[in-house]
């Protein structure tokens, strides 16, 4: 099932935000962002003695006149950051129409924000080859939520080293938050975790007897959803979310929880508040 995306609305909201990149120098291919290495930008970095083969245009002749020592001016490199957008395409992300719509809006918002960041973005939905993202609209064909398992549950996620990582999932699968976040952040320059859930997934209410069917085929359960069951569920969900939040904080990552049905502009503000996005 593919989420339906209202692109005009998403582009309107995303026009005011971009992906929040770290202040520290980052790596990447030639681009418009200052990199961590030496490059050809206009920002002066340091001097170093001339060695044969250096570009004579970078010799500081004025300094040579004062000290008779050939010194070469080094400038900071400008890079295009590598962004890995990880989208959970398991069936749980489209368990209802509301969640599917919210997922589409969130994915479009992040795709647009990545584009605004002038980054080298890729989309990871499965353990296989990632998909380069040249235009935000391409995200729509990639979000076919029919997998029985989330890519996050796989032991290897094809991240690029030093990439900026944005992970979107409901995280409604059994996991160890510290191990999961550690695996997601390992080798990366920056990590943002966005958890998307329905209101009834985060704050269920008393419904009476229900036959609960896991959309990913993890079982069925006849359950009387009464006060006690709701209370137990909320406690477990709260532990899950708090675990993710704490683990993200330990790893220096950002964590945001989005509830489906929230207007897209409010979602963007919440993501900005969590450090996932930044206003332009």
């Amino acid at each position, binding site marked *: 099932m593919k989420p339906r995306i209202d692109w005009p609305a998403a582009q309107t909201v995303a026009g005011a935000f971009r992906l929040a990149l770290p202040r520290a120098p980052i790596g990447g291919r030639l681009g418009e962002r200052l990199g961590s290495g030496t490059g050809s930008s206009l920002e002066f970095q340091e001097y170093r003695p001339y060695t044969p083969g250096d570009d004579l245009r970078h010799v500081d002749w004025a300094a040579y006149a004062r000290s008779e020592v050939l010194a070469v001016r080094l400038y900071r490199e400008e890079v295009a950051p590598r962004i890995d957008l990880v989208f959970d395409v398991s069936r749980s992300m489209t368990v209802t129409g509301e969640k599917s719509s919210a997922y589409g809006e969130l994915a479009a918002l992040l795709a647009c924000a990545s584009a605004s960041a002038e980054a080298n973005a890729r989309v990871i939905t499965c353990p296989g080859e990632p998909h380069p993202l040249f235009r935000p609209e391409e995200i729509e064909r990639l979000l076919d939520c029919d997998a029985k398992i989330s890519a996050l549950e796989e032991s290897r996620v094809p991240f690029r080293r030093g990439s900026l990582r944005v992970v979107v999932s409901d995280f409604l699968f059994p996991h160890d938050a510290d191990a999961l976040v550690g695996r997601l952040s390992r080798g990366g320059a920056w990590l943002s975790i966005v958890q998307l859930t329905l209101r009834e*997934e985060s704050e269920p209410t008393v419904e009476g007897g229900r036959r*609960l069917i896991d959309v990913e085929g993890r079982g069925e359960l006849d359950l009387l959803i009464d006060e006690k069951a709701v209370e137990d569920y909320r406690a477990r969900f709260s532990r899950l979310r708090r675990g993710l939040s704490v683990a993200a904080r330990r790893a220096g990552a950002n964590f945001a929880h989005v509830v489906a049905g929230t207007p897209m502009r409010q979602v963007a503000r919440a993501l900005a508040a969590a450090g996932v996005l930044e206003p332009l």
Partner: protein
Amino acid sequence: MMFTSPLGLLALLAIPAIIAIHLFRRRFPPRPVAGLFLWQIARQTPEGGGKISKLPITASLILECLTALALALILAGARIRPAGISEHLVALLDDSASMSASSSAGNSQGESPRARAVRRVLAEIDRLGSNARVTLVLSGERPSVLLGPAARAIEARPALEKWKPEAPHHSFALGLRLARELAGRSGRLMALSDSPPELAGGGKATPEVEGVVWVAVGEPLNNVGITAAQRTISPQDGKGAVSLTLANFADSPAHRRLTLKAGDQELSARDIELAPGTSSVNLPLPTGLPAVRIALSEDALQRDNEVVLVEPRLQEVAIENHLPDGRGRQALSKALGVLSGVTAAAHGHLAFVPAAELDRPASPGVWRVGFGRGSSTLTAPGEPQDFIGPFVPEKRDPLMEGVTLSGVVWTGASPLAAGVHPLVSAGDRPLIVLLGPRPESGILFNLDLERTNLVRAPDWPILISNLVEMRRQSLPGPERWNYRVGEWVRVRLGRDPKGPLRFRCGEIERTLPAG
């Protein structure tokens, strides 16, 4: 708790069926979820198929089980029986009039057996408690239920207060049978009578009274009663008389005063001495008097001390004698002459005619009796024969009552056509026949009166008397003029009534139901 239909408890099988349905059937509406593990600690696998899971105690399950339980209890006829109350008292009450006897001379100091029976039943009900169930059965001529079946104890006292034993006869055996049926297996059966079981049960103490608590509430009392009474008018001299049958139930002679009153006027009063047992008294009585009240002086049982007799009005039967002069006509006139309530008339109720006239249409209300050889439509080809027997009479017919035809020579019996109803036959030859199913159609004496010796035999006046009485019984009016209490009064109507019939007795007047 009691169950009147225990088989209804089979409906309880619906409860395990409901539970099984709830166990195996997916009754909850499905709801897709993203993280089933958050709803449970130990995750369940769906591949089990048919796996028995923990029974969900839902409102639906509880209501369905309660409904099945209620239906089962209704079908089983459950009745709540409070703790300690398990008795259903069935009391059979002697409804004979003797239960009302009382005398200050006995040990009871004027208390009747009825009062003692009531007190005993109420004491038993008090012992069983207010939640006991009570059934009261009366042993009249036909047993009846005074209260119940299984009425509440509080209803017993008003019912007993209304009880007035006054039946002239009663059958305790029939009452016991009804009481046993009402008591069933769990009921406590109590019989209350003024007689001991061997007398009340007709001398058969067992097994009729097995399992019955017999309470004899009577005591020996001297009693004289009128057991039969008849008021007659002599047909010969037209004088009236009263015949009484008196019974002295004591062991010693009794002295009583016998009084006859017509309205407020005392006609006669005499002291009589009655030996133990039954005796008769005949009293002359002028004719033309209204209802006469005959009373004995007071004793233990007042009810059998008094009778009221009205003067009987004899139904006159008008006779037409169209027989030709001769031996037969004379014999008929002689036989009719000794009968009472018979008058000669041109248009009567009973006509004696030659058999040949039976073909003609009869006047309304006239029974015709023909003698001699019938017309060609009634007879068959053949010569008349004489018979000296044996005669085969139809004994059940009232015409043949007391008739033997012993020594009779039946002469001139012609062969008769088919379709008649023989009352007397000799061989295959009918001698006395009904021309139709009822006497109104005509009666044929296939007999030559001039030659037979029947007219000199004792059977002749008996036959004529039977004919007259048969006709008299069919005349409009009551069968008799005086009846016992509780006896059926049968009245024959001359024609179909155009409106509802009304019964009047003194100041009592009632409209009889139609039909």
